[in-house]
């Protein structure tokens, strides 16, 4: 038998409460992966793809249990196997590269010993005295420079990208035959993502390891996988060779996912003939942070930006680029070291909290994480109406009417007014957050990664909503994102930040078709789905 992983009719259910019926998470799934093959399982949150990964490792959390079907890894059964038998499989036959490198390494244990745990699984093949050497070898194979130093460091001393490489090293150190990568790069910057995935590709191909790649990103699947399995609500809706599934999708859901994926259909917004007057201007804005022990860290270095009235400026950069500092300066939350900030022609750089307050009505913030930005004990009506109460606008009746208008505007039913955040999905919460930002009829919205925490289809809906609102209300947006592809459809102009400096600025179409800086080119090529891999002779 050539298949390294064989899943037949697998069903998994969670039973959160003894007296309630179990909730199915995965239903009747069949899947097989041959040696050296890469299969991508694609789905949105709640599709059951991570449950599938946990089931293959025999590590279903808490109340989860296999309710039907079977899993076989390298000819050995996983379903119904004893804990001992499972332990023999884990690490040696099947290894895991987990989702979020910031929480999947033990924070109080050095890197070396954590990787050594995988190496020691190969005893007696690897004698005790050569464990250290093997750890260093594994770290350098995963692309870490200076492995001796890394092995002695703690996880918090490494960046997210480096930590993910450590996890790859730990996964491969046991020399498994099957590697499960559960969203291995979704927590990382796009250029780092690309480098890590490239590296993983090479390692897997070089060693003939089978890879089960779990991702929400169709672009990643298209670039990396031989075969693609699309999951929805615990069921497989479509599967086959990557080129076939993504090239000519049969199922409506796959088509929908493809349409929403920003990487495939980058629609670039046209800037129009002339650029209107700016509503927000950052002029040669500089922000230094004093470092302990002397010296300065320059978070922003003479950055000049303009948000045109009624249009969108997309501000793109990776972590540490200074985009958040720029946004917080524009909000008046940070006092810049040098440079001016003008709102609608008025210099607001040196205004105090009190003086700025009347102007605050005119520019509002929408946060990155809709799960954290809403008070869990406020109803939707309280949340949306809060700015009105704060600025003493209207009375109870007019406020309620305004809340209903706003719910209409963001496409939520009026009877949502009584709900609390826990009863809303991620996309619905972000709609509420947008409605709250709109309640005081601002001229400018500062959008801080407004869709990065959402599934692609929901992302698309929110971006469409933002476009509609801009057209209807004449709003201006400063749209901050780490992803050029997300910005493209909404932004008239794009500015790219790197290391606190502005490396490129121009009309979106121009930046995309003719990027001037090398860094912008790198960002553009890192957009997943733009470089589909060759799928020569793949079979299902």
């Amino acid at each position, binding site marked *: 038998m050539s298949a390294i992983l064989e899943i037949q009719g697998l069903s998994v259910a969670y039973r959160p409460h003894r007296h309630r019926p179990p909730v199915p998470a995965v239903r009747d799934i069949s899947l097989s992966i041959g040696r050296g093959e890469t299969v991508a399982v694609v789905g949105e949150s709640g599709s059951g793809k991570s449950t599938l990964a*946990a089931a293959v*490792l025999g*590590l279903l*959390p808490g109340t989860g249990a296999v309710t039907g079907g079977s899993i076989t890894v390298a000819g050995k059964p996983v379903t119904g196997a004893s*804990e001992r038998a499972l*332990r*023999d*499989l*884990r*690490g*040696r036959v099947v*290894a*895991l590269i*987990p*989702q*979020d490198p910031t*929480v*999947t*390494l*033990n*924070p*109080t*244990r050095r890197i070396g010993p*954590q990787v050594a*745990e*995988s190496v020691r*699984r190969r005893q007696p093949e690897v004698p005790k005295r050569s464990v250290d050497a093997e750890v260093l070898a594994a770290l350098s194979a995963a692309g870490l420079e200076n492995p001796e130093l890394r092995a002695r460091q*703690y996880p*918090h001393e490494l960046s997210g990208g480096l930590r993910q490489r450590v*996890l790859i090293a*730990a996964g491969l150190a*046991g020399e498994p035959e099957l590697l499960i990568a559960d969203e291995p790069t979704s927590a990382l910057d796009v250029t780092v993502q690309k480098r890590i995935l490239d590296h993983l590709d090479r390692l897997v191909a070089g060693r003939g390891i089978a890879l089960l790649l779990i991702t929400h990103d169709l672009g990643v699947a298209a670039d990396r996988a031989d075969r693609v399995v699309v999951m929805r609500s615990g069921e497989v809706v479509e599967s086959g060779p990557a080129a076939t599934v993504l090239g000519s999708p049969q199922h409506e859901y796959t088509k929908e996912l493809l349409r929403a994926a920003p990487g495939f259909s980058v629609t670039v917004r046209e800037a129009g003939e002339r650029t209107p007057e700016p509503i927000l201007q950052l002029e040669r804005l500089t922000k230094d942070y004093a*470092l*302990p*022990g002397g010296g300065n860290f320059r978070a922003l270095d003479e950055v000049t930006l303009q948000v045109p009235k009624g249009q969108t400026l997309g501000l793109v950069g990776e972590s540490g680029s200074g985009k958040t500092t720029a946004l917080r300066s524009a909000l008046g939350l940070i006092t810049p070291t040098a440079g001016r900030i003008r709102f609608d022609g008025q210099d607001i750089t040196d205004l105090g909290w009190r003086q700025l307050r009347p102007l605050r009505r005119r520019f509002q913030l929408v946060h990155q994480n809709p799960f954290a930005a809403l008070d869990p004990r406020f109803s939707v009506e309280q949340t949306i109406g809060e700015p009105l109460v704060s600025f003493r606008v209207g009375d109870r009746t007019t406020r309620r009417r305004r809340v209903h208008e706003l719910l209409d505007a963001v496409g939520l039913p009026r009877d949502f007014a009584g709900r609390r955040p826990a009863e809303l999905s991620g996309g619905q919460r972000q709609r509420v957050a947008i409605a709250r930002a709109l309640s005081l009829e601002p001229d400018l919205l500062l959008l801080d990664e407004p869709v990065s925490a959402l599934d692609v289809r929901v992302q698309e809906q929110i971006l469409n909503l933002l476009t509609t609102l801009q057209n209807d209300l004449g709003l201006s947006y400063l749209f901050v994102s780490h992803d050029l592809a997300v910005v493209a459809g909404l932004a008239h102009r794009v500015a790219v930040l790197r290391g606190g400096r502005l490396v490129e600025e121009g009309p979106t179409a121009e930046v995309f078709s003719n990027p001037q800086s090398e860094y912008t080119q790198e960002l553009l090529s890192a957009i997943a789905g733009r470089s589909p891999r060759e799928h020569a002779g793949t079979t299902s």
Partner: protein
Amino acid sequence: MTSVKWLTSSTARYLAGRVLQAVIVLWAVYTVTFGILYLLPSDPVELQLAAANVQVDELSPAELAAAKQQYGLDQPLATQYFDQLGGLLRGDFGQSISLHRPVGELLAERLPSTLALGATAIGLALVLGGTLAYLAAYVRVAWLKTVLNRLPAVGVSLPPFFVGLLLIQVFAFELGWFPATGTQGASSLVLPAITMAVPTAAMLAQVLTRSLDDQLAEPYVATAAARGLSRQYVQARHALRNALLPTLTLLGLLLGATVTEAVVAETVFSRPGVGQMAQQAVLAQDVPLVQAIVVLAAAVFVVINLLIDLVYPLFDPRITHTPRVS
């Protein structure tokens, strides 16, 4: 290397700051006790004379003045305050009114017995509480887990004096295994140490169990398990150290309360220690002695918590007492 030099100098600065803080806390404790004992609510002369078995009414004004002078109470309040503070700094705790001996001498006499008792109780509490928590997190048999999880709540809710009396009844009177009172030999430590350890162990177990359960649900634990490590290894080598962090803070508070807990244990078991002396001093309204014991208890508390703060980075590498340049 310049960076190393920078680290050490700022560690020294941190230490100096913390020690200064500790000194300020002790001074505040002294001031507050001075205020409470001397300014509220009755006449200190009367209090102190009464403690010496003399009725104020029986004294003539001259005798009263002489008495005041004897205890230094004829001085202005500020002078008394600074005199006593100065004495304290020199290690002179003043004179006990009820026992007619220097307070320092009394403390030196009683302290060893209390320290032995406190140390035994803490050791016992750590072993008991730690084992209980570790088992409660490890065990997977549902009913046993429930029992182990509920046990600490029972320990916390039992009053120590009751536990002490129960132990005396069973193990001293009925079984005769351990002496009920006194300080003769190690066997006399057992019952009072258990009495003191029960609530401490129970609180430790409650926090540590909860903390272990939280850590075992963390993604890094699942990732470690995916490497093929055993449950025992993952809990001992991965989860435990992280779970100890919140427990460490609680441990500081619990250890700091040792002197206070010794009051009950030493009274119930008639052990002549600092705790028992504190109880007697309060009854006798022996102000200098009470004040010295309060300051001592505060000092123990402050020093232990300072030590805990200093060892914290050994348990959690993310915490440094020096700002890091990233």
